[in-house]
């Protein structure tokens, strides 16, 4: 399975990418929503996108809305990665079309559990 | 005695003022603040004898206001009037130095009970 990790923090991208690769994902990274759309428009359409909320150029909410307006990307699952201070805005992100969210700081287990619920654990991680 | 009422809802401020009156606390001077930051400023400028504050407000929440007051050395009596009366919130309020937490919805009896020891 493939996952796109969008976050303006390089450290956060590394953490999320590391967790997903540990679960058997093939990953790509983008520094903000617009870069994320560039990856998708380039034809690399993953099963999962993990997207930060607060980013320059294009934030997570705008990214979710843009993705949901393209039917070709309907099968993609979007997980918002958000911080405690933004957490009461989560429902807006979900209403725009995100499927799940995790609140920073999170553990690898927290991500794994959410992906298990969504049926998005690569085979080797299920076993 | 001067009472500062902080709530981002004007309607709720009026309901609090009305309930104070119904509870028999009717000859006090009332000052209103529309969020935590406003309340913090008005504690400084108005020198109230009691603050009744909402919890969830834009700009600065009630608990942030209370924490800012206490860390700046103010010991003004402070109570919450909030829609969130869970044991967890009550504990947070008490730990930050609040005298009481009145959960919405409330009535004049709730106010009497919480305020009788605080307001002369």
């Amino acid at each position, binding site marked *: 399975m493939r996952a796109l990790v969008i976050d303006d923090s390089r450290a956060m991208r590394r953490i999320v990418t590391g967790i997903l690769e540990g679960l058997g994902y093939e990953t790509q990274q983008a520094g903000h929503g617009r870069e994320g759309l560039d990856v998708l428009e380039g034809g690399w359409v993953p099963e999962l996108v993990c997207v930060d909320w607060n980013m320059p150029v294009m934030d997570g909410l705008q990214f979710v809305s843009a993705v949901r307006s393209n039917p070709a990307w309907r099968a993609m699952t979007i997980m918002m990665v958000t911080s405690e201070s933004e957490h009461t*805005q989560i429902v807006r992100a979900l*209403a725009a079309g995100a499927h799940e969210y995790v609140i920073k700081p999170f553990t690898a287990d927290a991500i794994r559990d959410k992906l298990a*619920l969504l049926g998005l654990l690569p085979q080797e991680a299920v076993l | 005695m001067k009472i500062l009422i902080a709530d981002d*809802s004007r*309607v709720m401020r009026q309901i609090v003022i009305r309930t104070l009156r119904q509870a028999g606390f009717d000859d006090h001077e009332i000052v209103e603040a529309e969020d935590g930051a406003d309340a913090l400023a008005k504690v400084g400028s108005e020198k109230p004898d009691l603050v009744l504050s909402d919890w969830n407000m834009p700009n600065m929440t009630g608990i942030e206001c209370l924490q800012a007051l206490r860390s700046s050395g103010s010991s003004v009596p402070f109570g919450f009037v909030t829609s*969130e*009366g869970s044991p967890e919130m009550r504990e947070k309020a008490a730990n930050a130095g609040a005298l009481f937490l009145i959960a919405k*919805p409330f009535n004049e009896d709730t106010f009497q009970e919480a305020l009788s020891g605080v307001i002369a």
Partner: protein
Amino acid sequence: MTTIDTGERRRGAESRPVITELIDGATIESIAQDAWIALVGEEEVLVPLPGEPVTDPVSSWVDVVGPWTGSVVLTTGRRTAEELTRALLQEHSPEVLEDEDVADAFGEIANVVGGNVKAALPGSSGLSLPDVGEAPAPRNPDDVCRVDLLWRGETVSISVQGALPALPAH
């Protein structure tokens, strides 16, 4: 700060609660009745009967984020929302109500109902500030607990609805 113990998270790994497992219509109705008596007036009764469909609807809601994530949405007709506002403002009610007054009063009712719904849910959750306008659409029909009530003969509905889509069947 929210710390969730491993046991709770592990249970969370197997399933995600829907609202009907956490709260029932009778509890929501009783929360609403308490809010009405305290805010709208002591004689103000909510009757648990479905009424006429609402024309020109307006909603107010707060979001709850925690072990269960969603919104507590009140919906009624605009005229009923104005009547509620006048009841809340009592002698402070202006001759001409501004939209802002209605948003404030109707939002505050959602805040009080939502805050008490939140308190009835397990675990620790966050609560948003109230919003007023067109209600968010429910994401998952199984994750909705809705009560229809009558206030002064007008329909007021309260929908406690999840923000997460249904899980894929697997």
